[in-house]
């Protein structure tokens, strides 16, 4: 007799609301990983999320936790306000690259420098998704977007910002790594990293961030499969995966 194996179920960290993300976008994967980690750590009840402005502006609809919605780029400042008066809660921001690395660069750098005990999930898909695929600070050199129609010319449009490398130089940062969501193996590694980031916060060991290389099939003008390939072949060489900073205290954590 054939037995049925449950291979997919919604994690408890999720609400029943279906997401609004485009087919093939990895936001959904990133959301799920966060929800699974919150469930596994048993912290859903004491978590407060901070949503950004960008494609994930409605993140608050999908996680079954309290949520606040920040102005564009200000999620780390808002999270600072929440965490400082509620130090026993788990506070995380979920931000895209336009939000975090462009308009919110001041807020993220200073939250990291202060060593705010918050967790940041940083989605790097190399463009502004919600407004229709404009050039972001993370857009690759030569990459075409709606505001760099001839390809990003670094002479006039500057160079992409490598956020994990940059933030890892700050003393307030406990955990700062880059992972990718382009295949199952990397998704598993990403989940481990997200877990470590939240464990960092739970133990009061400083600022934690996981940068996730992600796809944007709609605005990249690619099929979902080709988008995954693009991440592997073009984004990873420019944004190498790795552990940019893991403090000694965090290295001791055994899950």
């Amino acid at each position, binding site marked *: 007799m054939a037995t049925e194996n449950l291979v997919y179920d919604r994690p408890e960290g999720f*609400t029943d609301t279906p997401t609004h993300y485009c087919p093939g976008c990895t936001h959904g994967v990133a959301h799920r990983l966060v929800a699974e980690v919150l469930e596994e750590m048993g912290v*859903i*009840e*004491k*978590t*407060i999320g*901070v*949503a950004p402005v960008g494609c994930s*502006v409605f993140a*608050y*609809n999908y996680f*079954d*936790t*309290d*949520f*606040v*919605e*920040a*102005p564009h780029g*200000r999620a780390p*400042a*808002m*999270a*600072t*306000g*929440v*965490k*400082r*008066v*509620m130090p026993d*809660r*788990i506070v995380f921001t979920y931000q895209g690259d336009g939000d975090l690395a462009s308009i919110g660069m*001041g*807020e993220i*750098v*200073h939250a990291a420098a*202060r060593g705010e005990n918050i967790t940041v999930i940083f989605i790097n898909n190399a463009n502004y998704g919600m407004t229709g695929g404009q050039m972001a600070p993370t857009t690759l050199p030569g990459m075409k977007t709606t505001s760099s129609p001839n390809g990003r010319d670094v002479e006039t449009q500057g160079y992409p910002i490598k956020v994990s490398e940059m933030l890892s130089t700050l003393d307030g940062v406990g955990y700062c790594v880059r992972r990718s969501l382009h295949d199952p193996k990397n998704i598993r590694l990403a989940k481990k990293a997200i877990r470590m980031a939240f464990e960092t916060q739970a133990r009061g060991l400083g600022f934690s961030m996981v940068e996730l290389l992600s796809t944007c099939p709609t605005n990249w003008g690619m099929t979902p499969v080709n988008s995954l390939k693009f991440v592997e072949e073009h984004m990873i060489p420019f944004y190498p995966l790795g552990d940019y900073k893991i403090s000694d205290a965090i290295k001791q954590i055994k899950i």
Partner: protein
Amino acid sequence: MPKELWKGNEAIAEAAVRAGLEAYFGYPITPQTEILEYLSRRMPELGRTFVQAESELGAINMVYGAACTGVRVMSSSSSPGVSLMMEGISYIAGTEVPTVLVNVMRGGPGLGNIAPAQGDYNQAVHGGGHGDYQPIVLAPASVQEAIDLTVLSFDLAEKYRAICMVILDGCVGQMMEPAEMPEMRPVHRENWDWNTDAKMGKRERRILSSIYIDPVDEEQTNLRLLNRWKTIQANEVRYKEYFLDDAEIVIVGFGTAGRVSLSAVRTAREQGIKVGLLRPITVSPFPYEALDQLSGRVDAFLVTEMNSGQMLEDVRLAVKGRVPVEFYGRLGGVVPFPDEILSEIHRMAKVKLGTDVHPRDAWLERMAHIV
């Protein structure tokens, strides 16, 4: 409590502490930095939260985050810094979380200077940030009033889930006067039905946001805010009257311009001129009704401000052209002396006044001979 000599800025800081302030986020800017400095020592001493933010933008969003959890929170700044905070203020208004913000106003626009000014009246009273909202705005004229209104601002902010701004100019911030502090109110977290302090196994999840993606929902929100504002207008107007009983000329001035006018009124009274003063304490909601009633029995109004006539327009709205409204202002950080206002009173007592010329235009013409 016995009276002590308090500096305006420090008095506001201590008053906020005594009102149960649980978290302060700010950024240094003259002439309000003493508030930040005072709280950088006082808050940690009491085990409360103090963060010097990376910018006013950071500060107001930290305030926003903390306000969402339902605690008593504030920031303070001065004109250019408050401009930078306008984004957060609009979001806070749209999210309906109680927030207190102190603006120790200085000369502007732009970098301007650090001298006392009232040029941010319109920004504070008529919004400043984008969208349809009304903040409560209190305007103390003395150190004691700064203390009392700081305490009140927390109560009003919570009562109406609104932004309550305390606007004063550098004079009141930098001045020392004898004042009495209220008793220390212990930090107390209300059991609100709206705050996002995590479910903790006790309730359904909550979301705080200023997004209403469906215009119909946004319209409902705007209407809710407006109806709440009508309640505030009906219940929270505050002003102080001086020598109004038999007054033929009434000066209207807030903050320092109001108290400088008081000196002129005293001298004019000694000279037998029947002049009084109405000093708005809430500039938003504005005392339209009190001015409306006065319009029926006085000969003329004189509006004094340390700006180019911003509150003037609100006074004119209340007076509705029934009697002449004159204006006297000093700008850019210049504080008027009482004799300047006294000579305006003398002029008004002597000359037949009309309502055909806009008071700002008439004043501008007179200013050409003054400066």
